[in-house]
């Protein structure tokens, strides 16, 4: 075998070496980037969803009669004659509270509030090595809050009013395996809405709509439509780029309160308040390399 023929071995061998180098440059940093579960049911061998502490109850009164189920509450909203107050709490964190007054009734009060807590997140599954499960991830929180008032026009000398507030807070916890420091962060948002419609002795109608948003003090008040509805929707957003290996956890708490619903006498006189904390389409999620893994409770 000549020297020239021996040197021909160098061509394929060198190609392989270059291929290896390129492969190393493009890939090895992602060795530890294990993906999060695409669903939170625990199919990921590295992480499992943490337990959730939700509630699943409904209750209240419709014209003084006690109700205990969601169906009774929803039916009551259409059929009450004088007053209604009912709440709904779901394991998803959904906290909904409705209060209504007709025909000279009044309801609500600061002591009537309902809250819910639910804990969601991921932790290392038993037996998995923490060193292998360092996720580059972002904790992405989007919780929708909503308040709605419905108030009719009273007669002369009368006032109808609806006032409510709703508050949501989210505590985020995670370890940072890249920096060895914990994340502890709380984000909160509070909404309130008060609508009052007054007709004075001269027949002059005065509508007062006042809304507040803790994150946006300069927010304009929502319009009161011709049917007497005013609605305010906001989203509490949290976005944290992070690395976690052992556990990330999100504790959610929502409080809904009907402060006051009061209507003058008359069956066509009405004051209603509807509050939502964690309205449907809210989500807690972890985004990993563009993949969105939502918590669907």
């Amino acid at each position, binding site marked *: 075998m000549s020297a020239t023929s021996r040197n021909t071995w160098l061509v394929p061998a060198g190609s392989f070496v270059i291929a290896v180098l390129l492969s190393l440059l493009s*890939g090895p940093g992602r060795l530890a980037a294990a993906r999060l579960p695409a669903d939170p049911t625990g199919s990921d061998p590295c992480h499992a969803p943490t337990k959730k502490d939700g509630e699943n109850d409904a209750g209240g009164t419709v014209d003084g009669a006690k109700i205990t189920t969601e169906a009774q509450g929803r039916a009551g909203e259409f059929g009450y004659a004088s007053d209604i107050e009912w709440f709904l709490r779901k394991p998803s964190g959904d906290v909904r509270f409705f209060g209504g007054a007709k025909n000279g009734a009044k309801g609500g009060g600061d002591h009537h509030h309902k809250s819910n807590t639910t804990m969601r997140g991921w932790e290392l599954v038993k037996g998995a090595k923490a060193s*292998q499960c360092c996720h580059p991830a972002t904790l992405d929180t989007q919780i929708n809050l909503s308040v709605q008032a419905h108030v009719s026009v009273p*007669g002369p000398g009368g006032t109808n009013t609806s006032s409510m507030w709703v508050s949501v807070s989210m505590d985020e916890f995670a370890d940072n395996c890249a920096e060895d420091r914990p994340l502890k962060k709380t984000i909160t948002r509070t909404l309130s809405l008060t609508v009052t419609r007054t007709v004075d002795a001269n027949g002059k109608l005065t509508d007062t709509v006042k809304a507040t948003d803790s994150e946006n003090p300069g927010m304009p008040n929502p319009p009161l439509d011709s049917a007497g509805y005013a609605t305010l929707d906001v989203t509490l957003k949290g976005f944290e780029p992070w690395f976690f290996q052992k556990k990330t956890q999100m504790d959610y708490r929502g409080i809904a309160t009907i402060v006051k619903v009061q209507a003058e*006498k008359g069956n066509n006189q009405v004051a209603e308040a509807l509050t939502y904390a964690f309205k449907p389409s809210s989500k807690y999620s972890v985004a990993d390399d563009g993949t969105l893994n939502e918590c669907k409770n």
Partner: protein
Amino acid sequence: MQKLSALIGTWAAILLSAQTPPETETVIRAAVDEHFAIMPESWRQEYSHRLAARVDDPRVAAATRARILKECEGLIDTKAIPLLTVKTSLRAFPAAAPPEETILEGIRLCSTEVEAILKNAVLYAPLSEEEKAARRADLKTFEREALRILDERIVGDDRARGIIAARVAERFRDYDDAIGDPIRPFLNSPLPPAALREMIDDVEKAFPKEKKYSVTDLKGERDADSQKLRELGVEDLIFGVVVQKILAPIYRASWADPAALKEVLATQERLREWQVTTSEAIRSRAIEQKIEADKLRALLDPPSRVPRPITRANDGPSPGSPAARKDAPKAPDGASSTPAPPASRSRWPIIAAVAAFLVVLLLRLLRRPSAPPT
């Protein structure tokens, strides 16, 4: 004998009053404490005492007094509603609270309105059933006139007219039970004979007969019909004719003390101004505070950077990596719900092992001594 009867009557009255608990001031005080809690104790005591004295005046009819006591809490509660908007704003932005004197001013205005209403309420004598029936008949006359006026201005079929008539009837029906109410007076005394004519003239002037409202497409469903009537401007017409031009003048004429009504209207106007000014002050202050807080946060807490994860030398392939997950959930269309990784990333350990073997082989070949030339 006459003197004896008077003496017995006086003693009976004293005994009766002794048996009655001092409920007026207690009832009023409870409501005052609840709704005007921020006011000094001495003010609440003095105010409750003053209101109780008005209600307990011997000239006040027993039935009127009882009615006032029954509705007193509701009255104070309703008249304190303007404080609600400020209260909810303060709940959201407690640090933006206005000076205490501003809040006290709002409460004083509410309390003035309550007192003016009570000043008027104590003047009423309860109506007999016959009087109530007569007032109801008067009200029916007004309702018929209102319907006639609306009918003249509506262009529509019988169904549309029937729906509008029902809306008008609802507005009047609200007042069936209100006749003779001392707190919210309505037809407590007969109206002057010319009142009806004057009101009708006023309506005709405000809503000319020539302007017609075409009403079509009513379905008989309350919500849908209400929406249609609003779009057509008929709701405004009903409100203008029934509430502004008929019910409001009746309400005004029902006040026994016109000075008290004037005071109520003036106080309501001042309360509206107070509400707007105070809410705006809280809002402006909250905006300033938010801007300051954001600036401070930006200084103290710069945006977090995202570091690369620490890669350990002994790290093997992650058991959670997509390649290792045989049970990865599939999307409905059959595709993996997580994006497939590039092929080079999943195959690189095999390539590296093969490459290492070839490098070793190459080195051994290069080190082999070559045969001497022959």
